[in-house]
Each structure stands twice: as structure tokens, then as C-alpha cells.
């Protein structure tokens, strides 16, 4: 058959596409379980990071099981709607955040750190180039932040991407989400700005949009937990 004829070209392209599709599907099928496990271990590591427990891929699962004492879902009124820890862990926060607050399933993780109880709440939002997410841990009083860990998909290295590092995250320690009993979230302010009505941290110089995205993320994600946080 003439190599450069139309028929041959069409046949060649079709066969090639089918073979490649098969090869990729086969590879994906083989590796899917391992990849899912890795994603879960990474999520556990991030949750642990929000209560200042460092872990590696090898130690994440053990440390997670030791540190996290309970995980449940609450609704916008603060009522527990699901108490299975595994189901809570598997909830996709990015999908919940897209719903109206009244419809959301809100994961809450309880941790035992240094003999004290901490509450860990997931947050999800939008940065400049892609999504932002993270975990904020609160002390037993459900008011003060113990620590926070943040991640992102594609923020600019050196600018917006700084939210993933300790210097930015450590600012949140000790800040309160409430002022005079009312939920105010945390402000993320550019240098020179002041906010008397709520606790705030410094935004990242040159990373304004990411910083504002983070501020909105905290307001939107944590605000939904208002009823839960106010419960005695």
C-alpha cells in the first residue's frame, strides 16, 4: 500500500490512536490503587501538619491514626449528620464549598495533641491561577487558631506560593475567629492596612490576589461552621 495515500494515512492514524489509548488505559488501571493511596496519605499529612505534626509518606498513616481521635460531618446548624470517620475523610471539600452553606456537609476532625483537644476544619478556595486549600486547627475553645496549613495548585513561586510555607502559616497561630462572640474570620491585610474589627495577618507582598483569595477562602469555608463553633 502506498505509504502516502489517504487510505493508509487514515488507517495508520486510527490504529495508532487505538493502541495508545489501550496502553494508557492499561497503565492507569494498573497504577490507580497505588495513586489513590498516595493522595490519601498526602491528605493525612496535610491534616497532621495543621496541628503541627510533621510526617512523611511512610509515617503519615500511623501518626494520623494516633493523632486524629474522631472525624464527623456536621450540617450548617452544627448537627452531626455522619459519624463515620472514613466517610468524613473521603468527602470532597471542593464540591461542598460550591454548595450554599445550608446544603453543605462540613467535615470536622478532632485531634489529641499534647493532651489537649483540637478541632481541624478543612478550607477550600480560589487563588490567582488555581485552587487554594488547607486545614485550620482550633483550640478546645473553638475560637482560637492553634495552627494552619495551606496548599495550592499553581500559585507563583516566591509570591502567592509562599502561603504553603511556615513563615506565612505561623502568623495564624493564636488568632481568634470571633470578636465579641460574632464570627469575623481572619483578615489578610497588605502592610499599612489596619482592621480594628477582627484579628488579621500580613498579606504576601506581590501576592495580593492569592492573599485576598485566602482571606475569602477562610471567610467562606469557616463561616459555614458558625453554628457548630458556637455550640457549647
Amino acid at each position, binding site marked *: 500500500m502506498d505509504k502516502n495515500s489517504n487510505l493508509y494515512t487514515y488507517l*495508520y*492514524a486510527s490504529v495508532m490512536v487505538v493502541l495508545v489509548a489501550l496502553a494508557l488505559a492499561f*497503565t492507569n488501571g494498573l*497504577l490507580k490503587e*497505588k*495513586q489513590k493511596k*498516595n493522595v490519601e496519605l*498526602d491528605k493525612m499529612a496535610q491534616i497532621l501538619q495543621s496541628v503541627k505534626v510533621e510526617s512523611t509518606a511512610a509515617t503519615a498513616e500511623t501518626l494520623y491514626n494516633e493523632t486524629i481521635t474522631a472525624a464527623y460531618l456536621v450540617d450548617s446548624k452544627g448537627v452531626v449528620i455522619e459519624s463515620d470517620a472514613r466517610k468524613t475523610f473521603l468527602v470532597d471539600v471542593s464540591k461542598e464549598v460550591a454548595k450554599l452553606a445550608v446544603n453543605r456537609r462540613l467535615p470536622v476532625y478532632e485531634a489529641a495533641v499534647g493532651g489537649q483537644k483540637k478541632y481541624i476544619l478543612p478550607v477550600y478556595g480560589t487563588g490567582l491561577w488555581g485552587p487554594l486549600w488547607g486545614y485550620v486547627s482550633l483550640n478546645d475553645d473553638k475560637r482560637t487558631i492553634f495552627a494552619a496549613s495551606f496548599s495550592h*495548585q499553581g500559585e507563583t513561586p*516566591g509570591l502567592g506560593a509562599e502561603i504553603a510555607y511556615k513563615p506565612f502559616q505561623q502568623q495564624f497561630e493564636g488568632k481568634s475567629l470571633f470578636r465579641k462572640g460574632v464570627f469575623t474570620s481572619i483578615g489578610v491585610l497588605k502592610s499599612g492596612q489596619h482592621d480594628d474589627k477582627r484579628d488579621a495577618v500580613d498579606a504576601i507582598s506581590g501576592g495580593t490576589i492569592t492573599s485576598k483569595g485566602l482571606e475569602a477562602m477562610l471567610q467562606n469555608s469557616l463561616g459555614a461552621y458558625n453554628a457548630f463553633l458556637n455550640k457549647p
Partner: protein
Amino acid sequence: MKFNKELLLKPLSRANPVLVLVLGVCSTLAVTAQIKPALVMGISVTIVTAFSNLIVSLLRNGIPNRIRIIVQLVVVAALVIIVEQLLKAFAYDMWKSLSVFLGLIITNCILMGRLEAFALGNKPLDSFLDGLGNGLGYAIILFIVAFFRELLGSGTLFGFKVIPESVYRAGYSNNGLMILPPMALIVVGCIIWVQRSIRKDLQEK
């Protein structure tokens, strides 16, 4: 089958893809802030270039001329996706730090450059060696650039602190500019400068 050792050695210096052919410079800027990701990228590109060279060379007599580039692209893309899936399964942290850049291997000029210039017209073993040589030449440059950028920009090598505290206290501080891509370009320029001074055969008249 003859093992043509010249194909393996030439791209390491005399025909280095980054320094002489000036290919693959974008990823050289992007992943060399630290040594570890640079090495993983270097190894990934070497594997993908060698095997895509091999595959395209095996197929070279049957590829219709009109869809030549597309076929090359499909081969490279399929290989890169497989490498990415393997990393995601067996080296998750590395996959996270390389993320976007892995997919960008597909657009790395070194691959398409060698497929067009060599694999389409040469035997499989020769093509495989050529791909291996060019990948290694690229990896060496990545390592050298990352070595200086990590050392001078973060004071570490492979993540381990190598500059003692006493030097910092004496007034030295990490060069933040080294972590940004423009410095990588300048480092590559310096390496080209050094290479041309040593190798007279590379100097243009």
C-alpha cells in the same frame, strides 16, 4: 549491532543540547532551583528521549509523511503520561514538586528536535543511543545549574544545609535572586562562556 559510542559521548559536551544546540532551555530555567527536582527531570527526559527515539526509529519506514510530526508527538505524549503515572504511583512527593513541568516535557524542543533530526533517518539502536546521549547532556547541565542555584540561593545541597551558621552570622545571606528563573539563564550563559573558552572548535570565526 554496532554500538556507536560517539553517539553517546558527543551530546555530553561537543554537541550538548542546551549549550550548543540551545534546546530545552525553558525547563532548564524552571526546575533548577533545587538539585533534587532537577535530577528527576533530567532522568525523566533522558528516559523519554531515548525510548521515543527508539520507537520512532522502529516505525520510521511506515509513518505517512503528512502526519509525521503528529505521530512523533503522540509517541512522546504517551511516554510522558506513562512516566507521570509511574511517578504519581511510586514517588508522589516528587510528582507534586514537578507537577506541571512533567507534562511540559512533551514540549521540550530536545525531544522533537532529535526525533526530526535523527530518529526518522537512523537505525533503532543508534537512535536510542542518540536519545540517551542528548538526555544525559541535558541532565548534566540541569545538575550544574541546580548545584549553583541551590547552593547560592538556599545555602543547601540536596536539601541539606552546607553553609555553616557562622558564615551567616558573619554577614553572608542567601542570594534570593538565584531562586528566580532569570539567574538560571545567566548561569547557563556563564557555562556556555566557560565551554567556548576551553573548546576552540566551538568558537565561531
